[in-house]
């Protein structure tokens, strides 16, 4: 798609086809002779891994829907039946549940890759924004999917998240009732979540197609962040990157298989093996691990900000933490894409990754638990640095990275010298 097509149909059939629906040409230009920077490292293989996992989730999900019953008195039992009685149900259910986690691991690596190498910068802003749209759709899909087993964590996770909507002024209660389809999380909620959980992956697939289209107009970024200038800077996608991506996919699938077969429940929560009970709340409600950093940001706002009360403030901060990614291309003022040539900002980036991991840790803990203890109070209870304070600190850094570090560093940091071309960077011919 970038550059003229080099496809030449060789047989009578392909010539005939090419004049009617040039789909073979599209595939050839996109995935065979597509010019790809020759210096892509393994961080660039996660796009392919994500495509594979979208397919795994859709296929395993379609199969599960053949056996699952979206009814509040049968959903839990039907899932246990899938795990025990349906032929290979234990395997397919485990693939689907663990597949969600591996999908999110890959998407987080993919996103951090984009942040580190400046993949969001011109001319790839739309490519990045489409990626954020996919991520939001993934979060919605994952959330609704986690409700379907109708265990205690499913039910109460849904209760807490839908109640967040009630924090909106004036219209919050009406919207919450509209989402529930009743006066509480119940049958109507389960049915619609099932319907939407089935729908959204196909919406994701459509946006992925746009994402790849937007990728193939400017072509791939690369680790040094300078555009290919000559044919020597690129390699054809096939066989070079089909093989590299294929190898990475196999390695990733091996780790995935280890979880599917030997640790099928380790990423889940024990409380979700208790059927949903609207009259009893689990002692400690936590979302799936991949939402923990945002859950920590939600709970970090414990204070009113002007007319905004703490509950609404937490909701705004949580959604703001994701929505800020939409404007990232215009917040980073540096023309230099790759952090390799931004030694100071690179340190801030590493701290940002650590802050995200730290927020995940906070999200899994009770806000009043201690990160570390300093002494005891009069009653002998340990006092010290609370997780909620740690989360507040990290939440501040999370937003500061986007709103202060990236805008300011682009103006004041002097970047290192960049190589003249991709070829020079790879082959060391630093003459140019």
């Amino acid at each position, binding site marked *: 798609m970038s550059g003229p097509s080099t496809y030449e149909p060789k047989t009578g059939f392909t010539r005939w086809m090419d004049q009617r629906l040039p789909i073979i040409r599209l595939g050839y230009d996109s995935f065979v002779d597509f010019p790809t920077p020759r210096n892509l490292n393994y961080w660039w293989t996660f796009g392919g891994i994500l495509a594979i996992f979208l397919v795994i989730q859709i296929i395993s999900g379609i199969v599960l829907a053949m056996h699952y019953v979206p009814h509040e008195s049968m959903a839990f039992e039907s899932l246990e039946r899938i795990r025990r009685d349906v032929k290979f149900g234990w395997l397919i259910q485990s693939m689907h549940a663990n597949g969600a986690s591996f999908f999110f691991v890959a998407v987080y690596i993919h996103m951090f890759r984009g942040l580190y190498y400046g993949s969001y910068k011109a001319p790839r802003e739309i490519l990045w924004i489409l990626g954020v749209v996919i991520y939001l759709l993934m979060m919605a899909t994952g959330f609704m999917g986690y409700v379907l087993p109708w265990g205690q964590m499913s039910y*109460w996770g849904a*209760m*807490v998240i*839908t*109640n*967040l909507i009630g924090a909106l002024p004036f219209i919050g209660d009406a919207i919450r*009732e*509209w*989402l*529930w*389809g*009743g*006066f*509480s*999380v*119940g049958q*109507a909620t389960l049915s*619609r979540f099932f319907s939407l959980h089935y729908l959204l992956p196909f919406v994701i697939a459509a946006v992925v197609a746009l994402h790849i289209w937007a990728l193939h107009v400017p072509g791939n970024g690369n680790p040094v962040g300078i555009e290919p200038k000559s044919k020597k800077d690129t390699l054809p996608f096939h066989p070079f990157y089909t093989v590299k991506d294929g190898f990475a996919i196999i390695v990733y699938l091996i780790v995935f298989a280890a979880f599917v077969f030997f640790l099928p429940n380790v990423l889940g929560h024990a409380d979700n093996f208790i059927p949903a009970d*609207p*009259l*009893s*709340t689990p*002692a*400690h*409600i936590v979302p799936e691990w991949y939402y923990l950093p945002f859950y920590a940001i939600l*709970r970090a706002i*414990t204070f009113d900000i002007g007319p905004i*009360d*703490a*509950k609404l403030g937490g909701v705004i901060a949580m959604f703001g933490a994701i929505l800020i990614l939409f404007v990232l291309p215009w917040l980073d003022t540096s023309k230099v894409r790759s952090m390799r040539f931004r030694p100071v900002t690179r340190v801030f980036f590493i701290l940002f990754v650590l802050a995200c991991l730290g927020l995940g840790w906070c999200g899994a803990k009770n*806000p*009043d638990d201690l990160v570390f203890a300093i002494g005891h109070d009069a009653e002998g209870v340990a006092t010290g640095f609370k997780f909620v304070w740690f989360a507040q600190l990290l939440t501040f850094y999370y937003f500061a990275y986007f709103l202060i570090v990236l805008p300011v560093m682009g103006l004041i940091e002097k970047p290192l010298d960049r190589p003249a071309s991709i070829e020079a960077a790879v082959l060391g011919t630093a003459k140019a």
Partner: protein
Amino acid sequence: MTEQNGALGEHGQEPSRRDFIYIAATGAAAIGGGLAIWPFIDQMNPAADTLALGSIRVDVSTVTDGTEITVMWRGGPVFIRHRTQAMIDEARAVPLGDLPDEASRNLNAGMENASAADENRVLRPEYLIVKGNCTHLGCVPLGIGADTGDYDGWYCPCHGSHYDASARIRRGPAPENLPVPDYYFESETTVKIGLSPDEAAQSGWVAS
């Protein structure tokens, strides 16, 4: 000005009949489209049978002094606490200024816009009847027999909200008092939850 009638408008000099048709057709399509979408949005609101299942009858004779029960109403819990005189006195001794939420949060006739004084939270002082979802994020607070919190009411373990003996929020992230549903006593020992006496009379229910 040599253009013929239709071409005049395209050049923007003077609105033509065709311009009017464009605007009218586009406007009608936009409004029609909006109206066509509405049924697909409104279908997600509670259905007629869900609304019709809105009331229950509870026998409170088994709830002895100083105990409480939790019943299921509209898919969620309702607390019915039979308060002792000491509990009532404690709730009524609280100055209104100590309450983060000073509204009654009571849907029953005459109490909708009242203050959060305990008198406005109950129909009979000995029976406190409130919805059992924390007003923070909807968890079910713990009560008598588990943990009544620092104000002898309910304690929500999710994020640490404390409610008092009138189920009013006293400390923690919850913004509002536990709401009081519509209810009335059909007899000394039977309470009807989800219906006011007026509504009951209209729908054929007879209040005694």
